[in-house]
């Protein structure tokens, strides 16, 4: 069901300390967002894709498919940014007349749209590197160390665990309904889906009560204390990640200022 999750536990970078991977992804993400330069964005896309596919051994085909996930939003968003509407026809590269105004694309709009598209793709690659290499449980451990409110981290961990339990239940109910023609027409489909959701809700509720009981049997008194597994930590990797982000930032900055090897 959730392939990203599966790869997070089976990829070749699984054993690298999560803090290092998070620092790397965030450093690149911030650099990419702060720079807004096409070249930098492209570099981030390629670099992150290489890290995921070559180092973490995520299948290239799957990675490409994953890049299409935000495509619908990106296309619609980018299209809207590029589109403009004005009385001043001279602004437009292409457009249609609607009454006294022109609806179409301006050069500035298209340029922003292209920047935006590449930047977003770069940022998405950073996110993908993180989610494909770092299991959620290790991210929680990190959040605990970062002193986020314990209640919040505990809730996250519970939600994560029970997403899988409820997904399985939902799938079973769905199969059982379809095997009896429950999604044959639009009307029955609405009714079936409503029943599925209502049942899932009732089951979640009962499940939470049972869970309280079973945890109380193990002396739960209000805190969900757990011991994090020891992780190998390499300060060198952490330093390298920050360095990579900084280099990118510096390179981009030089490019903006028209100096250095990245000058436009």
């Amino acid at each position: 069901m959730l392939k990203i999750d599966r790869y997070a536990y089976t990829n070749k970078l699984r054993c690298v300390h999560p803090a290092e991977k998070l620092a790397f992804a965030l450093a690149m993400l911030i650099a990419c967002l702060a720079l807004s330069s096409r070249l930098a964005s492209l570099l981030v896309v390629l670099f992150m894709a290489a890290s995921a596919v070559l180092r973490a051994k995520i299948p290239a085909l799957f990675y490409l498919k994953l890049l299409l996930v935000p495509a619908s939003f990106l296309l619609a968003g980018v299209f809207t940014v590029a589109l403009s509407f004005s009385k001043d026809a001279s602004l437009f590269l292409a457009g249609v007349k609607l009454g006294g105004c022109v609806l179409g694309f301006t050069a500035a709009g298209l340029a922003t749209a292209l920047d935006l598209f590449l930047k977003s793709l770069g940022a998405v690659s950073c996110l993908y590197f993180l989610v494909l290499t770092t299991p959620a449980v290790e991210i929680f451990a990190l959040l605990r160390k970062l002193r986020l409110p314990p209640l919040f981290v505990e809730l996250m961990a519970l939600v994560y665990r029970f997403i899988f339990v409820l997904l399985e239940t939902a799938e079973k109910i769905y199969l059982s309904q379809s095997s009896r023609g429950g999604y044959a027409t639009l009307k029955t489909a609405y009714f079936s889906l409503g029943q599925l959701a209502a049942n899932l809700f009732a089951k979640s509720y009962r499940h939470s009560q049972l869970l309280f009981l079973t945890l109380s049997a193990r002396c739960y008194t209000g805190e969900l204390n757990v011991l994090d597994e020891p992780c190998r930590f390499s300060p060198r990797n952490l330093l390298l990640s920050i360095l990579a982000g900084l280099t990118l930032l510096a390179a981009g900055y030089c490019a903006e200022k028209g100096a250095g090897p990245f000058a436009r």
Partner: protein
Amino acid sequence: MRRKKLILSALAGFVLFSFPRPALAMHIAEGFLPLGWCVFWGVLTLPFFIAGILSIGKKVKHHPELKMLLGLAGAFAFVLSALKLPSVTGSCSHPTGVGLGAVLFGPAAMSVLGSIVLIFQALLLAHGGLSTLGANTFSMAVAGPLVAYAVYRFALKLKLPFWLGVFLAAALGDLFTYLVTSLQLALAFPDPAGGMALSFLKFASIFALTQIPLAVSEGLLTVVIFNLLTVHSRRELEELLVLPGGKIS
């Protein structure tokens, strides 16, 4: 000009029919907002989030079983948003759960649960993102639920039929969420010619194509769910109302 028109309509057609999952239009994709706006929406969301944490924390102290309930509720919200809504056009889309969550758990809990669901949508489904988490949480876990909850309470006060209250809460919560999303995009990308206002109009109308039928679908589904819940799970619903502190009519 004629050729350009053709290209334009082809482009428009391409965009309109290339929505494999239109509901995703609600999540602002990773990297789409400039850094400044990411920080802005994050900071704006923070007080609501902290208020939510404090409110939950207080209740959990007296009812330790609430923690398990909230955990399951969050997972439920995630699974609900992963279900496919049946639709007339044959395209598939997903419910947001904004209205259902607001009425069941109250807006305070929703700000926390919603942000958790959004994090997992980013981590497990690649919907939304980390940099846009603040903006998405604001529209889907703060603004939407607040409006949905207000509509629901108001409808109760007006003594509207229960189903109508739920329908309006879900549909308007959904619509308001998308308006906030459009506003967020418009603020970040004002139109070079027409400024912020024109940009808002552009985003709102483009997303409206998919969003209005979706809001109606979601409203209908939420009514079906609530009708079933009030029939079979009345006791659970009543116990649950510790959270929003309300009452089912």
